[in-house]
C-alpha cells in the first residue's frame, strides 16, 4: 500500500490534471461558471426551508443555516459516490488504451467534488459573517472533520466505482442507497427528534457524527468538550467505521482493478 501511495504521488500531475478537467467540463459553457455549483445547495436549502419552517413549522431556529451546515458535507459524499460509480466505465477509452493506476479516475472525481465543497464552505463563511455568526471560534476543528470525512468519501467512491464495472446496475441502486443515507443522517432534522430506540442506528452512521461536527462549528458555535454530542466514544466508532470503509474500498478496488480493461 505504501508503494502504491508513492506511485500515486508520482502520478500527482495526472490527478491534478484530471481533477481540473472534471471541474472545467462541469462548468464549461456557462457564464456564471463556478457559481453554478452554489445554485444546487441554495435551491435545496430554499425548498427544505420552505417545507420545514413554513409548511411543517418544525420550530428550528434559523433552519436554513441549520440545514446547510450538514447538507454541504453530505453533498460532498453523495456527489462523489454518484459520479464516481460510473467513472471507470465512462473513461473506458482511457482504461482500455493507456496504463496508469486506475484509482486516479475515482480519486479525481472525489477531488473535484472536494474543491466544490471547499468553495461552498467559503461561500458559507461569507453568509455566516454577514449574519453575525461567530463561526470562527471553533474553526480549528473543521480541518480535522474534513480530513476524517475525506477518507470515508474516498473509500465509498473506490468501492462503488470498482463494483460497478462488474455490475452495471449498481449505479441505479446507488442513487437509492444515497437517498436512504440522506434521510438516515440528521440533516433536515436534529438528532434529538429521533425516538430513543432508533438513535442507536442513526448514531452508528458516521455521517451523523461528521455532520454534527460541522453543525457544532457553524450553527451551534460550540465545541462539546466531554458532555455534548458527539463525544469521544461516538467519534472513535465513526472513525473506526470510516477506516474500515476506506480499507475495504481500497482493497476491493485493488483486487478488481487488474481486470477492468477486460471487463469494460
Amino acid at each position, binding site marked *: 500500500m505504501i*508503494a502504491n501511495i508513492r*506511485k500515486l504521488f*508520482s*502520478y500527482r*500531475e*495526472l490527478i*491534478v*490534471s*484530471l481533477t*481540473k*478537467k472534471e471541474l*472545467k*467540463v462541469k462548468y*464549461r*459553457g456557462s457564464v456564471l461558471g463556478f457559481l453554478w455549483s452554489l445554485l444546487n445547495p441554495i435551491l435545496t436549502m430554499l425548498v427544505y426551508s420552505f417545507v420545514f419552517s413554513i409548511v411543517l413549522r418544525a420550530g428550528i431556529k434559523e433552519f436554513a443555516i441549520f440545514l446547510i451546515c450538514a447538507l454541504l458535507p453530505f453533498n460532498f459524499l453523495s456527489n462523489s459516490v454518484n459520479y464516481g460509480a460510473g467513472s471507470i466505465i465512462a*473513461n473506458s*477509452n*482511457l*482504461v*482500455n*488504451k*493507456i*496504463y*496508469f493506476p486506475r484509482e486516479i479516475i475515482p480519486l479525481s472525481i472525489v477531488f473535484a467534488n472536494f474543491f466544490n465543497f471547499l468553495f461552498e464552505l467559503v461561500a458559507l463563511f461569507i453568509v455566516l459573517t454577514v449574519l453575525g455568526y461567530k463561526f470562527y471560534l471553533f474553526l480549528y476543528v473543521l480541518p480535522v472533520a474534513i480530513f476524517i470525512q475525506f477518507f470515508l468519501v474516498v473509500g465509498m467512491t473506490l468501492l462503488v466505482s470498482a463494483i460497478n464495472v*462488474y*455490475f*452495471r*446496475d*449498481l449505479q441505479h*441502486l446507488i442513487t437509492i442507497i444515497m437517498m436512504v443515507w440522506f434521510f438516515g443522517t440528521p440533516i433536515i432534522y436534529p438528532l434529538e427528534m429521533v425516538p430513543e430506540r432508533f438513535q442507536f442506528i442513526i448514531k452508528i452512521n458516521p455521517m451523523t457524527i461528521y455532520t454534527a461536527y460541522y453543525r457544532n462549528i457553524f450553527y451551534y458555535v460550540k465545541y462539546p468538550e466531554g458532555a455534548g454530542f458527539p463525544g469521544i466514544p461516538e467519534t472513535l466508532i465513526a472513525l473506526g467505521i470510516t477506516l474500515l470503509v476506506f480499507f475495504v474500498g481500497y482493497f476491493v478496488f485493488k483486487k478488481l482493478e*487488474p*481486470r477492468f*480493461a*477486460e471487463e469494460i
Partner: protein
Amino acid sequence: MSERVNNYRGSGIKNSGDNIAVDIKSVSKMYRIYHEKIPSLKNTILTRKRTTYEEFLALDNVSFAVNNGQTFGIIGPNGSGKSTLLKLMAKIFLPTCGEVIVNGSLSALLELGAGFHPDLTGRENIYINSAILGMRKREVDKRFDQIVRFSELEKFIDTPVKNYSSGMYMRLGFSIAINVNPDILLVDEVLAVGDQSFQAKCYKAIYDIMKRGKTIIIVSHDLETISDLCSRAAFLKEGKIVDLGNPIRVVSQYRAYVEELEKKRAEDQQREERKKIFKTVIESNIKVVDGEDIEKLSRLDSEQAIKRFGSGDAMVTDIRLLDENENKLDYCKYGDEVKIALDIKFNRKVEGPIFGIRITDIKDNIVYGTNTRTNNLKTEVYDKDESLRVEFAFKVTIIGGNYYVTPAVGYKDSKTYCDWVNNMLTINVLKNEKAEGIANLNSKITIEKIS
C-alpha cells in the same frame, strides 16, 4: 509482481545486467467471453449463479525478448493476439500466466487521442493527454510549441476538439504521443494518420525516435512498414509465434499465409454459386453446353465432380508443362521458354475441332487464352481412337504465383464442346522480386538529371 515490472515511470533504463528492454516469458492470456452482455447485480442475486462464460486463449505460451534500441515488428491476421500482446506490455492487461518484464519507461500509442475530451480545447487536451501519457507539466510547457507546430493546428489550438475533423484529431494525438519521449514506445496501427504529407512526417518522427536509440515495438498490417523499419519481427497466428527473426523472411512467410488464405476464401465464395449452376447442368443432363454457359461455368472451377464437361467425343487425357527439351517441369520462372502439352484421344469421328487453353490466376482472372481457330490453324478430320499431341509453346512473362491451365476441345461451331477440363494443370511461377501484379512488362528504368 517483480519490482522491475513496476518501474514504468522510472527516469532511465533500470540496469538489469543485460540489454533487454521487454522480456516476454512464456506468456499466455485467457479471456472470458460472457454469454450475457453485461452481468447485473439483479441477475446474480435473483438467479444465484455466476454469469456463464467461455474461455478464449488469446496468447498461448509466447516468449521473446526485445533488445534495447531495437525496432521490433509484430504482424499477423486479425485476432491473432497482436494487440493483446501490446496491452500486456503496456500493463493494461495482466498475463494469465507467464511474466512480462519491462525495463525502462514505456509509452503506448494504442489509440491516438484516447482520453481527449470533446468540450475542451486543443490546448487543454494537450496538457491532459500528456499527463495521462506520463509527462510532467514542466516538460509539456517546454515542448508545447513543438507539439502544436508538428500537428499543424496553430490556428485551432484554442478551439474545442469536438469541432476538429477526424484528421485533425489524430494529428494532435500523434503529435502529443511522439513528444512523450519514453525509453520504449509501443505503436499499434497508428502510423496511417492524416494526408500523405503528414504521414511522411509521422514516419520521419518514428525514424528520429529510432535514431535516438529508443526501443520501438510496432504492430501493423502494413508489411512495407515492418520490413522497412524493423530490425526484427514476429509473425503471430492464433496466439502463437509462427516465425521470429529477420523481418524480410517473417514478412514473406506472412505474405504466403495471407495468399493461401485469400485463395481459400475466394474458392469458398464461389463454391456455393458453382454448385447451383452445375446442379442444373447435371440435372438437365445436357452433354454439350453452349458457349455462354461455359463462360459462366469456367469461372467456377476446381470441384472434382464438376470440373469437367462436354460431349466426350474427344477427351483431354493428359496435360503437362514441359521445357524446350521435353522435360516435365514442376515450376518455371520468368523468362523460361516452356510448352503446355495436351494429349487428346478421340472417341468418335470429329471434324475440324478447335484446341485451346486458358490460363487463370488464383482469383480466376483470365491471364491468357488462345486456341487453334483464333490462330487460324486448320485442323483435320479425326477418327475414333485416334490420338493427338497438341503443344502450346510460349515464353513465361507472368509474375510469380500459382496459375491454372484449363484445356478444351471444341466443335468447329465454336459454341459446343467435346471436352472442357477446369484447372487441369497448376503452374507454379517462382516469385520475381522486381515486380508485382500479373503481367511482367519488364520495364527498363532510367534515371537522368534534367537540370
